C-alpha cells in the first residue's frame, strides 16, 4: 500500500535547515531517509521551501485567482512530504513516529488513492 506523509514542521524545524548537517535535526533527517530507503519503504518525497514562498491558485467562473501565501494558515507549516510503500497503515504510522519532525510538528498520514489514480493515468 502506498501512503503519503504530509510533514508539518515548526518554525524552529525550518530554521535549522540552514545549518545543514551540523544541526541534529538535519542529521536525524539524513539518517531517517537512509533507513527508509534501506527498508524498501521509500517511494519518493521532497522538502518544500518556506511557506512564505507559496502561491495559491484558483479558477472561478473562468477567472484566475492568484493569491500570495498558502492554502491554509497554521502555526505548523507543510514542510515536505514522503511517499511510502509499506504493508499497512500500522507500518506507515511506525515510520511516522520515527520521523524527526514528529516530536515538535505533526505528520498527517494518508493512503494514496490508487484506484482513482488509475482512472486517469495510462498504465
Amino acid at each position, binding site marked *: 500500500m502506498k501512503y503519503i506523509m504530509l510533514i508539518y514542521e515548526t518554525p524552529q524545524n525550518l530554521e535549522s535547515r540552514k545549518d545543514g548537517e551540523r544541526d541534529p535535526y538535519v542529521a536525524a533527517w539524513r*539518517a531517517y531517509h537512509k533507513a527508509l530507503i534501506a527498508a524498501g519503504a521509500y517511494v519518493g518525497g521532497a522538502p518544500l521551501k518556506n511557506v512564505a514562498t507559496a502561491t495559491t491558485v484558483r479558477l472561478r467562473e473562468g477567472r484566475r485567482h492568484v493569491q500570495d501565501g498558502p492554502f491554509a494558515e497554521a502555526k505548523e507549516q507543510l514542510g515536505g512530504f514522503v511517499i511510502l510503500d509499506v504493508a499497512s497503515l500500522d507500518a506507515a504510522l511506525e515510520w511516522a513516529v*520515527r520521523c524527526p519532525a514528529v516530536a515538535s510538528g505533526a505528520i498527517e498520514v494518508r493512503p494514496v488513492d490508487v484506484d482513482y489514480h488509475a482512472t486517469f493515468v495510462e498504465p
Partner: protein
Amino acid sequence: MARASYGRLLAYLSSETRDVVGAEDALGDALLAALTSWPKDGVPRQPESWLLTAARHRLIDQARRRRVRDEHEGTLRRLAAESTATAVAGGTFPDRRAELLFVCAHPAIEPALHTPLMLQTVLGVDAARIAQAFLVPPATMGQRLVRAKQKIREAGIPFEVPQDHELPERLDAVLEAIYAAYDLGRDDAAGIDPRAQDLADEAVWLARVVRERLPEEPEIRGLLALMLFCDARRAARRTPDGRYVPLSEQDPGSWSTSAIREAETELGAAARGGRIGRFQLEAAIQSVHAERAQTGRTDWAAIVVFYEHLVQLAPTLGARVAQAAAVAEAHGAAAGLALLDTIDRAAVATYQPFWAVRAHLLRQLGEGVDAVEAYDRAIGLTEDPAIRRFLLERRG
C-alpha cells in the same frame, strides 16, 4: 473506583454471562447509579457488593430486553441464584480476573488484541489510551476491541483456567500478552520506548493478578521478576534534563533496592519450581546486571551462558541481538559482531536495536565508515528523541 475493584467486578460479571460487552455496560450503569445515590444516601457498607447487585439487575434487564427466552433463560436463572448466594456469603465473591485474562489471550482471539483486551477489561484502561500506546487511531482500537468481545460471547470462550495439559501453552499466551505491554520498554542496548513507559505499571499489576491465582507456576514469577528488575532502573535511564543513559553508564546507586529485592524473591521462588523457562532466564540476566549494585562489576560470562539457553528456548530477534551484545562484552567486539552477522538481514531492516549494537561494535573495532552507516540506520529507526540525540552524539 480502584482498578482492583473494577477488574474483579467485571471479571465476575462477565464470567457469569460470557458477555464482556454486556458486563461492561451493566457495570457502567451501576457506577452511574452509585454516583447519584452514594452522595445522597451514604456509601454502602460493602460498596463492591452494592455495585455487583446493581450491575446484576442491569444484566437481567438486558437479557429480558433481548427477548430471546430460550437462549437467556439459563442466564437469568443463574443470575438470580447467584444474587441470593452472594447475599448469603456476606458480600464476598470469587476473583475471576485470572480467568478473564485467559479469555483475553485465548487462541481464538487475534494475538495483537490480547494485550489491549487485558488492559481494558481487567484494568479498566480506556480505549483511547490503549490506542495511543499501540499507535492506532482511537476509533480503530475501539472497534477492534468491540469485535473481539463479541467473539468472546459468540464463540463461547469459557471463563476458566485451562486444565493441566493445556495450561503451559495457554499460560504462555497470557504471559506473552502481559509482557507485550512491557516489551518495548526494555532498557538494553535498544533503549526505551516512551509509549510503553506508562504501561509498565499496568503490566506488573497484571502479572501479580496471575501469580495470586497460580503461585506454583515458575514462569509467572519469572516474568514478574523480569519486569521488577527493569522497573528498578526506571529513574536511572534519564538524567534530570532528559538525556538517555544506557545501562552500562547508569549509577547503580539510583536503582530501586526495594524493587530489586522483590524481584530476587520472585526469581528465587520460581527457581524452586524446578522448571526453567524463557522469562526466568531473562530475569536471571537482569539479576546479574542488578548485582553490579553490590559488586561494582558485571559478570558478562554468566550473562552469556543465560543468553545461550534463552536463544535455544526463544530465538526472538531481541534475544539474539542482546546475546551478540553480551558476547561482545565477554569475548570482544569481533566475536559479538560475528554472532550479530548470523542474523538474517531482511528480518532486521526496521529493527533498531540490531543497528544500534552493530554501530557500537563497529566503532569499537575501528571500522569508522561502516560504524557511521550503522549509526545512521539506528538513528533513522529511532522513535525516542532522547535516544536519537544520544546516538547522534555517539555517531559524531
